[in-house]
């Protein structure tokens, strides 16, 4: 079979199958980025707080989830979650293995890892907000939440954007590891195609090329977003 028909969209082509996998990869990465954003901003707040206990909790979180292999964390969520579910199942008289939905377990695992990196990104971004502006906001009488919404959050987001781009790339690649739980994302679908046709080389090259396409496109998107949010930072034209 020629490469054209093999990776095409005809009845014997695997093109649609691989693209479907790429779609699941994007979906699971988006879900994990969202989970990571919630966890990451919470942990960043904990690490910046006055309370020693909260700072300690934040430090432990970022140390553990950045220092332990991603694969082990995925095993923890998939097998750990499944054994909890199976135990609950037995309680209701259901014998045998109850698996956690692979999408959920994968998004949670990659999300927690992503959160540990995002926490550092948000912490750095918060520290980049000028103290003077926060004091000025306080001086004109803005209360905590208003100050956060009008002064802190917009700037933190802008400063965090390049770092978030990096985290997104990391999560996109980490999501390939979810294939070990059987989720039909791009890596898993490449494996399935390779196994059925015995064209291992062709399928891994095709899968890899799709990953490259995704990273290249998301790079562009983040660059565009940086330009957009950085508008107020740009110097007006011809000031000299």
């Amino acid at each position, binding site marked *: 079979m020629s490469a054209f028909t093999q990776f095409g969209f005809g009845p014997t082509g695997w093109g649609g199958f691989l693209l479907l996998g790429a779609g699941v990869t994007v979906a699971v990465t988006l879900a994990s980025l969202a989970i990571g954003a919630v966890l990451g901003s919470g942990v960043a707040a904990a690490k910046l707080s006055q309370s020693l206990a909260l700072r300690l909790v934040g430090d432990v979180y970022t140390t553990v989830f950045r220092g332990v292999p991603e694969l082990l964390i995925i095993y923890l969520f998939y097998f750990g979650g499944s054994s909890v579910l199976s135990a609950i199942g037995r309680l209701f008289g259901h014998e045998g293995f109850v698996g956690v939905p692979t999408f959920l377990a994968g998004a949670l695992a990659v999300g927690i890892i992503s959160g540990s990196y995002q926490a550092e990104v948000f912490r750095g971004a918060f520290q980049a907000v000028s103290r003077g502006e926060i004091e000025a906001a306080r001086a004109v009488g803005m209360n905590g939440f208003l100050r956060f919404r009008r002064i802190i959050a917009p700037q933190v987001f802008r400063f965090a954007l390049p770092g978030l781009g990096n985290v997104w790339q990391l999560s996109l690649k980490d999501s390939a590891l979810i294939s070990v739980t059987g989720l039909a994302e791009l890596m898993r679908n490449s494996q399935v195609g390779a196994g059925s046709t015995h064209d291992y080389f062709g399928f891994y090259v095709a899968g890899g090329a799709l*990953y490259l396409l995704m990273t290249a496109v998301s790079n562009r998107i983040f660059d565009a977003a940086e330009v957009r949010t950085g508008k107020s930072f740009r110097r007006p034209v011809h000031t000299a």
Partner: protein
Amino acid sequence: MGLDFPFLLDTMERLIAALPLTLALFALSITFGACLAVALTAMRVSRYKVLDRIARAYVFVFRGSPLLIQMFLVYYGIAQFPAVRHSIAWPLLRDPFSCAVISLALCTAAYATEIFRGGLLAVPPAQIEAARACGMSGFLLLRRVIAPIALRRALPAYSTEMILMVKSTSLASIITVTEVSGVAQRIIAQTYRTMEVFLCAALIYLLINFVLARLIAWLEHALSPDLRAPPVALIAAGAAAPIETTLLH
């Protein structure tokens, strides 16, 4: 739920037995990867546009795709060609351990190239000019001035890359290398005691990373006498003369 210490001890013992394999994967792939990265960095800053383009493409491909797919490509993909199976490299490409080392080294080389290039760009031009003014050029200039400063500047970022590599060795378990994660996965599959096994394995990786981070911090300190504050005790004692002589060295 109480802790089952005999089980934890037994798990720890089995995981530690696999530790040498993890460390070997790490050491070999970092060594080969760093050598490759030096060559790629040279290409990246070369005056020949073609070499620069090739190095750029290499970095894009290996940083832009997941390590797992690279590893599968090396282990399963290349082996399907009869020419490879009949070549002298076959004993190497048939073995999962060497395939894991090859793909880890190829991947880390891409990241290290950018880190080394950053270090190179951070060398102050004045230092290079001064060395040229003293009559150094070519390899002598590289060996005495550029390389030491660039490597020192690259060290903090490179330490992060090394820690990422310690974690990446766990992927070798997916192509059947029974290093620490592979053994952990096996024990989980046999006992379904995920949490306990995870804790033991996590402890081992955190310990490796902790020791590695300390070693690099020590190396950074040892390599930057110029950034250290002068010995405060001596100044307080009014011993100005000895400081002057040490500064002159």
